[in-house]
């Protein structure tokens, strides 16, 4: 049951939900802008992959999940953590490597965890966490639960064996799992069509006899509705779904990579920015009279304050104690 064509997005979600979505998308945007700034100031180290441009995906998905559902992500997961409810303070502190971070300062940008919120981590090896998603769904079914597991990954992971092994087993065992491919068109600096024989990721759903949908990732409501359908399939009959969400990152692959250059043009990036999911939703809400400019400004100020607070908190938090070095290598 592969459906590559979805009905055109027609706003149906209620105003309150859309306002919440706007707030979450703005939070991610402002948070990531602050991360870029902190990185430039040397407060954040290592690899750091920003989510700017892709906010609608995490936000649209999150609105369709219940708190018991599992989320597991690749290393581009700041946004997913925030919308899952991991406090901005704990995420920022983790990026700063502080003891108060959501992984105690041991994970960093690529390994945000909040097991209590069933946020099962950012994982750093491309494709490596897809089998983990199948395993989490296996555990759900084993226990007879009605949760689902949703797994975020980039389109480059489609070329790795783990993708195929994970989808195959999820289908064979009818597990409640949603594989959500955020197709932002570039694996680092390599355009997908240069390295993939099949460039429509959703086609792979056929290979494993699971549901597939292509979704406009710049439209938060479309992402939301597609996720709701996938969640329903998973909860009802343990039928997995492959969602190909077409999106675009406005920043470089990571903080140490250029925004554009040999692999994509400045013009292309500018063209894509015209489809900015936040602007789109804001216009829609304004058209519907659900929000006005002063309202937007107030919301933005509130979010700025929240992000500034997170930075302050992270700045003031202590480093992990030296004895933390040897802790948590093994469980008791």
């Amino acid at each position: 049951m592969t459906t590559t064509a979805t009905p055109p997005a027609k706003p149906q979600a209620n105003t309150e939900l859309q306002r919440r979505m706007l707030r979450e998308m703005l939070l991610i945007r402002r948070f990531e802008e602050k991360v870029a700034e902190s990185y430039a100031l040397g407060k954040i180290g290592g690899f750091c992959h920003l989510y700017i441009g892709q906010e609608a995906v995490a936000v649209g998905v999150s609105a369709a999940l219940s708190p018991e559902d599992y989320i597991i992500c690749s290393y581009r997961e700041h946004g997913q953590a925030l919308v899952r409810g991991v406090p901005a303070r704990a995420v920022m502190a983790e990026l700063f490597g502080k003891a108060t971070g959501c992984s105690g300062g041991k994970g960093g940008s690529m390994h945000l965890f909040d097991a209590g919120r069933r946020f099962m981590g950012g994982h750093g090896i491309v494709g490596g966490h897809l089998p983990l998603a199948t395993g989490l769904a296996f555990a759900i079914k084993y226990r007879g639960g009605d949760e689902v597991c949703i797994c975020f990954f980039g389109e480059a992971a489609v070329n790795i064996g783990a993708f195929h092994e994970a989808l195959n087993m999820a289908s064979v065992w009818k597990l409640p799992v949603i594989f959500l491919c955020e197709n932002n068109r570039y694996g680092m600096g390599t355009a997908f069509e240069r390295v993939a024989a099949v460039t429509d990721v959703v086609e792979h759903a056929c290979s494993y006899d699971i549901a597939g949908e292509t979704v406009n990732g710049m439209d938060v409501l479309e992402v939301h509705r597609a996720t709701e359908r996938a969640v329903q399939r998973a909860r009802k009959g343990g039928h997995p779904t492959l969602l190909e969400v077409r999106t675009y990152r406005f920043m470089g692959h990571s903080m140490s990579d250029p925004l554009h250059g040999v692999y994509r043009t400045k013009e292309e990036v500018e063209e894509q920015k015209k489809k900015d999911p936040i602007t789109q939703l804001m216009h829609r809400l304004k058209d519907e009279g659900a929000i006005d400019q002063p309202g937007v400004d107030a919301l933005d100020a509130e979010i700025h304050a929240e992000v500034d607070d997170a930075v302050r908190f992270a700045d003031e938090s202590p480093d992990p104690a030296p004895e933390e070095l040897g802790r948590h290598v093994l469980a008791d």
Partner: protein
Amino acid sequence: MPTITYRDALNQALREEMQRDDTVFLMGEEVGLYQGAYKVSRGLLEEFGAQRVVDTPIAELGFAGVGVGAAMGGLRPVIEFMTWNFAVLALDQIVNSAAKMLYMSGGQIRMPIVFRGPNGAALQLSSQHSQAWESWLAHIPGLKVVAPATPADAKGLLKSAIRDNNPVMVLEGEMLYNTKGDVPEGELLVPIGQADVKRAGSDVTLICHSKTVTVALKAAEQLASQNVSAEVVDLRSLRPMDEPAILASVAKTHRAVVVEEGWPHCGVGAQVVDIIQRDAFDQLDAPVLRVTQADVPMPYNKQLERLAKPSPEKVVAAARRVLYLD
């Protein structure tokens, strides 16, 4: 005390732990309907059903990762690799996912998972199927690695591994599955990280594990006829390693030979030698020698294969050298 095979000892361990804890399940190639490639899981599908004895596709990376995910979801998976040679495909999940989950989540996500299967050479299986992986696995912080040599240790260590809240690699031996030994009735738990003196002696310590325990015991027998009293220390666990046991024996004998199935370069024996030189330097009367697999891929030919493997004769020769008898 009942005498049973190593294979049946493992089977008992799996059955008892699955009866005891319904979050324990077995997953791997041919573990269910086929009753296990080496029949370790014989009868388990019938007793526990397909939900808990799960046949997988041939996709080591995939099902190892499924196991890791299931452990994240609160289960206690036992993942069987038909052999550890195939587990190399799953190394990403073992090393990057299982070993590090607890640490990089700041202690939030425990990883109670067992990866098990036969390790090392059997007979004439040539290069790709005759490899000992313990030094690869024991290198990784966050993993525990055990390699039982006897049926009793196999049962006791597998049961301990299943109850452990960390990823435990259980390295079995195809050539050991048919070997028999006394296994005490009732609850049998062998603590992970404890070596076992399989034969007491006073002149030289032979440090070994898994299949090389047999080799060392045969060597000790030959040495006895030459009036050399060899102590055979079975490490049983490679990570953590029982350093006090190694040091106590060397303090008694002043000479040591490490016997292992793996290749020499950066092998398990190198670690043992490091422990001895660091903490028993003044006890040594001779450099510690190692008997390992020859530093070549395993050949198919029977005679060449025999040349490549550690043998009692090689161990005797090394023991005589550290005793300055040759």
